[in-house]
């Protein structure tokens, strides 16, 4: 093995280096200047994000355990941008609340380790690397969810996340062991040759899917979502709903479209049912939420249901639509969570009723929220519409007309509750609305990038063509 081939892993190497630099910096930065670690982390990660755009050749390492191609490389860049926005949005929170507790740097270290796990997970060429990556991406987040230890709810969120994640990954591991038992290999390439739809393989696949469905919070496995999002710090909830979910969707899609493709007759029906259940449960429960974090939790469950529309197809169009939708979803959801974060940091208010009359006092924030919610709902001028539209196209081309129709019904339901928030901000009046405040530079940047993303991604059509071209890698 040549030393130069390590260059294929430069995303991973760079991120690991950043995490190690931060660990060393944590030791040497004196206690009064701990907040400078925030600048250091954002600066380093910004460079890492920018360098990530340099092209990378397609190859595999370590006998096929690690593989990369242009779609995987592209998706790592999407994750990088998402995490970068998230860091910008959470910088103020860390500087004001967390540095005092003397654990500001650890937030970044754990977050970067978790992202590193996702890199390895989506680059995995066999089930062992996949599983190790899954664990590395989940366990640090549980520590992050319990980050505000002085709050009982935060500790509760951490415990709930780690226990249910342990159960889910146990179930998924059992499924993987069955796939190994029937195919005799853990390498994806070998399994693809040996797999056949017999009972044990199908049972293994169902268990494996259940574990992944937990990560994506699809419906029978969604119970942890609302509680964890509500209790965890907003940045962590945002990370779980956007980055974590996006990476899990991506790897599940790759596996289903390549390795598990021979089982397509089975998973088509499964996903059909799960998609409907996820959309309906997510949307109907979101209707009655009062807390913004719980509201966004159920909204994110419903969005996962829409993503399944692309997953059910098993085609190149499906792959491209899912990646495109996940990318837009990252921007829209980060914008919504960013506004909630900004308001919660300044006032501590998190309920929908507290947002009454927000437009009069904070017009810019409420406009960003408006854009984010329109994009999540899928209203034409903004990017979210195009994301959903391509998903519908992909599913309709394979003949799932009823499913698409029911998805459109769900969009109508979701429109109602998204507009509830819009009504609170723009039409309702309040005796003591949230007073006017100015955000700091990082938060402004973080929100600004999301707004640009929401407005530009939908209109800039070469992007979709580009993703479509890349998607050919996984659809032969």
């Amino acid at each position, binding site marked *: 093995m040549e030393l130069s081939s390590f260059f294929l892993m430069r995303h991973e190497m760079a991120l690991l280096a950043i995490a190690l630099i931060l660990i060393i910096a944590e030791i040497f930065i004196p206690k009064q200047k701990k907040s400078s670690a925030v600048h250091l982390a954002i600066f380093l990660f910004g460079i890492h994000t920018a360098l990530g755009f340099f092209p990378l050749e397609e190859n595999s390492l370590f*006998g096929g355990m690690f593989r990369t191609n242009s779609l995987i490389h592209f998706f790592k860049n999407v994750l990088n941008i998402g995490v970068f926005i998230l860091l910008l949005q959470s910088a103020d929170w860390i500087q004001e609340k967390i540095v005092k507790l003397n654990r500001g740097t*650890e937030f970044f270290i754990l977050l970067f380790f978790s992202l590193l796990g996702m890199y390895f997970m989506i680059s995995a060429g066999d089930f062992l690397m996949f599983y*190790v990556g899954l664990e590395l991406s989940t*366990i640090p987040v549980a*520590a992050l969810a319990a980050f505000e230890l002085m709050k009982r709810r935060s500790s509760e969120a951490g415990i709930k996340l780690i226990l249910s994640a342990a159960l889910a990954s146990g179930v998924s591991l059992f499924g993987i062991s069955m796939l190994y038992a029937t195919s005799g290999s853990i390498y994806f390439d070998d399994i693809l040759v040996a797999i056949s739809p017999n009972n*044990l393989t199908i049972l293994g696949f169902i268990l494996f899917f259940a574990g992944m469905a937990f990560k994506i919070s699809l419906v029978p496995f969604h119970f942890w979502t609302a509680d964890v999002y509500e209790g965890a710090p907003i940045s962590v909830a945002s990370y779980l709903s956007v980055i974590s979910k996006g990476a899990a969707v991506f790897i599940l899609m790759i596996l289903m479209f390549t390795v598990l493709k021979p089982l397509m007759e089975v998973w088509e029906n499964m996903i059909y049912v799960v998609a409907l259940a996820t959309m309906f449960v997510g949307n109907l429960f979101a209707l009655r939420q009062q807390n913004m974090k719980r509201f966004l939790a159920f909204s994110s469950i419903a969005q996962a249901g829409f993503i399944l529309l692309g997953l059910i197809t098993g085609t190149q169009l499906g792959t491209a639509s899912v990646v495109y939708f996940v990318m837009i979803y990252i921007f829209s959801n980060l914008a919504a969570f960013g506004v909630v974060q900004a308001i919660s940091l300044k006032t501590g208010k998190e309920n929908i009723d507290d947002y009454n009359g927000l437009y009069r006092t904070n017009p810019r924030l409420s406009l960003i929220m408006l854009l984010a919610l329109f994009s999540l709902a899928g209203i034409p001028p903004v990017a979210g519409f195009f994301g959903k539209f391509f998903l519908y196209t992909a599913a309709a081309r394979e003949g799932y007309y009823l499913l698409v129709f029911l998805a459109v019904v769900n969009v109508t339901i979701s429109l109602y509750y998204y507009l509830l928030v819009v009504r609170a901000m723009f039409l309702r009046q309040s005796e003591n609305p949230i007073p006017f405040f100015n955000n700091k530079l990082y938060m402004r940047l973080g929100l600004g990038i999301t707004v640009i993303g929401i407005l530009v991604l939908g209109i800039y059509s070469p992007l979709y063509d580009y993703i479509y071209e890349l998607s050919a890698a996984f659809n032969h």
Partner: protein
Amino acid sequence: MEKYIFYVLALIMIVSAIASVSSRRMLRSVVYLLFVLIGIAGIYFMADYNFLAAIQLTVYAGGIIVLIIFSVLLVHHIDMELEVAKKSKRIITALACLIGLGVFMTTIYSHPFIETTTAVTTTTADIGFALLSTEAGGFILPFEVISILLLAVMIGAIIIAKGEDVTEEPPKETPLVKQEKPVEKKKELLETEVTV
């Protein structure tokens, strides 16, 4: 002969596993779990996986169980007992378990597994080479990533362990476990008051 040993080991494992999840005292559960892990080591020995069996004994039975016992002993209310669930709940849980067991058993037993005939014993040297090999079938990448995982977990554990006390009001819901001690303490308090 091998068959009988297998059945004895399996019986020990199943009985202790059931005892482990149904016991109401934490410490006893842990000890039952120890028997399950030793049973697994026995199965590994039977399958000629000597290295794996040794690891199973030293790491799991030796290390992890001791760790669990330590953390159980560090929990404040060690002598608490879990509440007995309602009868209806117990029946539903038992039914769900039995159905699940049935599905799994029938699927696994109906699968036509291919019997392997080669009986090559894997030596520790082979395992060592495989762990550090970068070629196909080598495990150096997961080996290194697991070390990163351990580092991350350690940092996470330190973060949680060095946290300050919970300042908010205690939860309103009744806790999952039944507390027996406080009642006795109250009695003692009453008595001391009387004597004063």
